[in-house]
């Protein structure tokens, strides 16, 4: 019985917590701008309001426009099954592989880009173009940063990686650190943060992620915003749990789970603060400078692989 509860907790932790972390990042950014900012639970109010609004849908759109938010949100949920958050007790061999995670996220992005083109407005099309360009270039860095961990752990299963990296001696930690820097760049790219994209911009000509969702309203918009928050939390969780896995529970006992939950939230908080502080310090880059940054991420991971041997 408790196993089922813990599994449900693990499965629903990301959708439940993701708006909170979006709120925390916004709050920290507001404080750094000398404002007070909205409460950290504000994204929850935003989502609940959107779920209770009517929708307006364009004549020009097709079933892809209507189906995309569900596919996007579901793709973020699928990852929760294979990504250990608070315990490694649910190791499975069918969805814990890191390539599956990368490509399921790519599936969501594919449909998101299609929906951007679907309505035939000017902004959605070029938003899709930029999003697919960055996604294509970021994939190499993403795969390689996870590959570094897999080579260290002799397995691509995320649970095994956690086990291996947590027992790594400090001397061999340098490749993991380099891979983490590469991974952090990819995190910023895939979740649309500075310097890749400004999540709060109103200038359509500079938008990447927001441009594709300009036509959405009501419950579908709520699903997309929630899915974007999920994606941010998934990346933060991968960063926290795979690169710095100390503190995660290895069993399914309640005290271990509660302790692991606390440590997990603390790690996520530290990473969120890092993201918010980084966003407040740098400006959004010009689009054609971004491939250089993504290539840097790839090269860092390659150096890390070289250092393992």
């Amino acid at each position: 019985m408790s196993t089922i509860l813990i599994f449900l907790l693990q499965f629903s932790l990301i959708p439940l917590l993701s708006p909170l972390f979006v709120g925390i990042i916004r709050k920290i950014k507001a404080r750094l701008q000398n404002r007070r900012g909205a409460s950290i639970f504000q994204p929850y109010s935003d989502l609940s309001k959107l779920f209770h609004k009517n929708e307006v849908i364009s004549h020009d759109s097709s079933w892809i426009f209507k189906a995309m938010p569900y596919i996007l949100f579901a793709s973020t949920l699928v990852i929760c099954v294979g990504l250990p958050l608070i315990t490694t007790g649910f190791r499975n061999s069918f969805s814990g592989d890191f390539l599956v995670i990368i490509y399921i996220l790519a599936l969501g992005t594919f449909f998101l880009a299609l929906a951007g083109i679907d309505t035939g407005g000017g902004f959605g099309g070029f938003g899709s173009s930029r999003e697919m360009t960055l996604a294509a270039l970021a994939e190499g860095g993403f795969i390689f940063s996870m590959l570094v961990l897999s080579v260290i752990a002799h397995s691509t299963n995320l649970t095994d990686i956690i086990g291996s990296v947590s027992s790594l001696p400090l001397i061999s930690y340098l490749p993991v650190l380099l891979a983490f820097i590469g991974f952090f760049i990819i995190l910023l790219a895939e979740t649309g943060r500075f310097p890749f994209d400004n999540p709060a911009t109103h200038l359509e000509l500079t938008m990447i992620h927001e441009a594709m969702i300009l036509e959405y309203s009501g419950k579908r918009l709520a699903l997309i915003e929630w899915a974007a928050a999920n994606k941010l939390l998934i990346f933060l969780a991968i960063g926290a749990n795979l690169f710095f896995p100390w503190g995660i529970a290895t069993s399914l006992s309640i005290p271990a789970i509660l302790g692991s939950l606390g440590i997990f939230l603390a790690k996520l908080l530290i990473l969120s603060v890092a993201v918010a502080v980084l966003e407040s310090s740098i400006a959004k880059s010009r689009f054609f400078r971004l491939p250089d940054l993504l290539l840097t991420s790839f090269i860092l991971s390659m150096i890390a692989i070289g250092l393992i041997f």
Partner: protein
Amino acid sequence: MNSAQNIFFLALSLFSAGVVFSILSYNKERLANIFSSTFAILGSITGIISAVLVLIYNQSFSINTPSSFPILSYTFKVDYLSAFFVLIISVIALFASIYGYGYVKQYFGKYNIGSLGFFYNLFIAGMLLVVTANNALFFLIAWEVMSLASFFLVIFEKDKEKNIKAGGLYFYMTHAGTAFIILAFLLLYRSVGSLDFDIIRNNIALVPAFTKSLIFVLALIGFGTKAGIIPLHIWLPSAHPAAPSHVSALMSGVMIKTGIFMLIRISLDFFAGGPLWWGILILTIGAISSVLGVLYALAEHDIKKLLAYHSIENIGIILLGLGSALIFNTLGFQSMATLGLVAALFHTMNHAIFKALLFMGAGSVISKTHTRNIEKYGGIIRYMPLTAFFFLIGSLAISALPPFNGFASEWITFQALFAGIRLVSDSTTWAFVLASGALALTGGLAAACFVKVFGITFLARPRDEKIKQISESSFSLTFSMAVLAALTLVLGLFSGSVTSILSKVAGNVTALKNSGISPGADPLAIQSGDSFASVSLPYVFLILGSAILIVFIWVKLVSRKQSQRRTITWDCGTDLTPRMEITATGFSRSIITIFANILKPSKEVEIVYHAENPKYFPKTNVVNLGTKEVYQTYLYEPIHRLITRISELAKIWQNGNVNAYIMYIFVVLIVLLIAGALK
């Protein structure tokens, strides 16, 4: 005499009947169409049955029929590898023929259907002979039949001059490739003394190491021209679009794989592996072809040319698997070599299926809109919903997204490359690292390209008024697309079982005969050999499906009181014209600009002014965005100039002067007499 053998010859005779009956009914269009399609369909079905009998029930066979010509004998040998390729050819031929029955109707009254049927059946029969021939000369005859039949199919729509030029280029390139193949076989004959493949396989030790490498390089160039590796690919983007769409599906899906088939045969089966540089060379060629193929595809907005470039990209991915298999074989990691070969074979099959599906979808759209230019499409999902849906499935498969078959084969290719990074401990690791980087980049760029193709073709508003008049294609077209789309999903879900069959096929080549290890016998999961990785696509599919269902139900409950309203797209207050939608050129311009050094984009501007003096007010301004022809300029034209220059040098000797020729004879006579006297 076993049943697989009988059924295989039945298949060949059905195709021959198709050839004969098509040409007999050359002036009765409908009858010719019915005959050619029916015999092709029946031939394909029997081909599938015979291949399945060989693969599942182990009925491989071999026949030897000597002929009057001493070194030629009509020998067939169908082992697992040949049977696998017979299966791929027959499956794609089956659906291409069903599709072709409806598709060819648009040519009634314009071109001769009888000749189409003649060459079509001859083409498929030629391909079947190519993968089953066991004698080098017989193989070359079959190869030539296949190439010539496809040449005539490429120039079928002979009123368009572009098609004739494409056919001409194809003709020259394929014969140049055949010349290299003939050279390779002649070198083999010189060392082994026979043209029979079995004898060659058994006596390979007679070939000295230098000749082996020479034969390998010649075969690589010759079969690589057919397969379409960079830089020998220049015929592919013009020839595949020129042919009718079901023939393009066959050419792109199956014919270029015959090049891969012979590469596998020669490197792993005859030679049983070779020095390390063979594998590294193929790995490099694969990496370059995959990345460049997809980059060129992004720059195109002719839908069939774009799909042809994607074929080059996927051949690159197949070669990544083959290259890693060769490297592992040389280094002694037999189970990983099997994994690499399984990856190559799996991707061969998957690519054949989703490429045929995509070409059929493109053909369906082209037959209704009469243009291949994507910039004139738009909004077709409203008028051709079934074609759009199946094209979407094909796009998902080629972008390697789970749970379709493209993901399964690319996953296994990744595992083979990752195995290289982990297990190999010297500098060859870096070849694997760069190859993995290339594969990751290719996967992402392919997804970007298909978002562009699907989005601009099918979504948003029509960019041309004529689009609003079109309607869905007929049943034979949509049926064949539907079955192929279902196959992409089925092969993805059952990838575990498929890989176990493929490892049986891979274990049959001479190099891997004693590995005895199969990379995974779990029917529900695909695995890399040594418990490094495993993934179960049925479970992923199930979880994804349940997640979508859960979300749908939850949202329905939460927002049950909310309504929807339909209105125009948010247009910022101005009227929406088709020009406001994203164009194909605009979509890919970011990527082209990023890779500008490789793609060398060009921009030509033509301005016509109202008055010549002064040039202040433009009347029309035409901007042409394109990419330069890199290979023509930097590789083929220099070679062309070099050959022309060498030929011109010969003019010094062959100057037409009879007196000079008599002097040559005199001089040679003196030299021979002196040489004979000195002996």
